[in-house]
């Protein structure tokens, strides 16, 4: 009983210290995001070139895909099917 009481005290301390620590830690992460990341985002915005290249990418894809509008939909479905078989992006998280 003595022993159990001591365990309870230890568990209670753990609970308290643990929750304090978790909140402190994730709270500091908020500070980090609000202070460091926001400044970085202002200083290094996503480059216009990058946006452009992304656009070019999309264009390229359309070109590769074959320029016919019907085909685009077909491709989307083909790619989706392919991803389902090989990537399963929505369910992958469950892997853990």
């Amino acid at each position, binding site marked *: 009983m003595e022993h159990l009481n001591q365990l309870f005290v230890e568990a*209670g301390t753990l609970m308290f210290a643990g929750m304090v620590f*978790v909140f402190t830690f994730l709270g500091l*992460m908020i500070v980090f995001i609000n202070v460091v990341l926001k400044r970085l*985002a202002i200083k290094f915005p996503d480059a216009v070139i990058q946006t452009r290249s992304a656009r070019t990418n999309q264009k390229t894809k359309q070109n590769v895909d074959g320029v016919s509008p019907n085909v685009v939909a077909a491709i989307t479905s083909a790619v989706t099917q392919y991803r389902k078989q090989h990537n399963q992006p929505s369910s992958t*998280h469950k*892997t*853990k």
Partner: protein
Amino acid sequence: MDSLNKLWLSTGLANFESGQVIMMIVGCLLLYLAIARNFEPLLLLPMGFGAILTNIPLAGFSEVGGLLHFIYYAGIDTGIFPLIIFMGVGAMTDFGALIANPKTLLLGAAAQFGIFATLFGAIALNAIPGIEFTLKDASAIAIIGGADGPTAIFLASKLAPELLGAIAVAAYSYMALVPIIQPPIMRALTTEDERKIEMAQLRPVTKIEKIVFPLGVLMMTIFFLPSATPLVGMFCLGNLMRECGVVDRLSSTAQNELINITTIFLGLGVGSKLSAEAFLNIETLGILGLGAVAFSIGTASGVLMAKLMNKLSSTPINPLIGAAGVSAVPMAARVANKVGLEANPHNFLLMHAMGPNVAGVLGSAVAAGILLALVG
């Protein structure tokens, strides 16, 4: 005939023990849940299969020289498999929603109360005769409340390897049961009006933020909680590979082939801990019960925290997204979205719930680090 007799003595039928039969049924039950009920099949299927294999009389799968013995000691006892999976999960995780709305980190923090309250509860179960949980055992059990499979396996393999099987079964089962466990608690703790709250659209997040975020998380973990760095470090490595844009082939492999290979062996290895001696006892019942408690308390804590924040915050926060703080990515976020849609058919909470959802992953890795530092 001597040879036929020898053959008979080498059959399973002549050597079965009742415990092995029961554990095979447990294994089949896990397969059923995985296949027919879609309970986290990627892990429960190999785990259930491993449970069957390890209980085959004479086959020696989990004895020295056996396949599952190699797998367990090479991959789980060392912690390598859960860490590789954590790297893959990191490579699959998009922190955009979290960076856009960092307040949701507090929801991920609050939901970890499920862990620490369960730790207390596990100690309390010692009052029941037949149950004797040390502080290490209790910590390993409590982590079920983190709703994160690899974290639970990693911690259990360090603190209480003899309970690993039961803990993994409980963790993955309850993760699969999130859509059943959470909604009643969410509805009970919120009003109709609260559930209808629509949230402001998230700001776009730049590439640099997504690259620096995992590094920042790692640095903070290094400064304040080195014992969590195996889990957080591998997670952040995966996430950095994903976001940096220069190692796409590594990121893709980490998210696909590598995590798949590891998942098969992790499941088999965990299943090998489902032997009769280790599983068929009152402690397993205790673990299963505590797991349900842990999930419920975590859900409630998250929702209550979100209610509090909604009152204090200038921008509206739907309390439902607090439930996603338990992690169980992306199931818990989907549940929040679904319950929200019931109250308000135009209210799509999915992206908003992804913030606390991934915050919960970090939160439970941090909690695991605390338990390792203080109890391990």
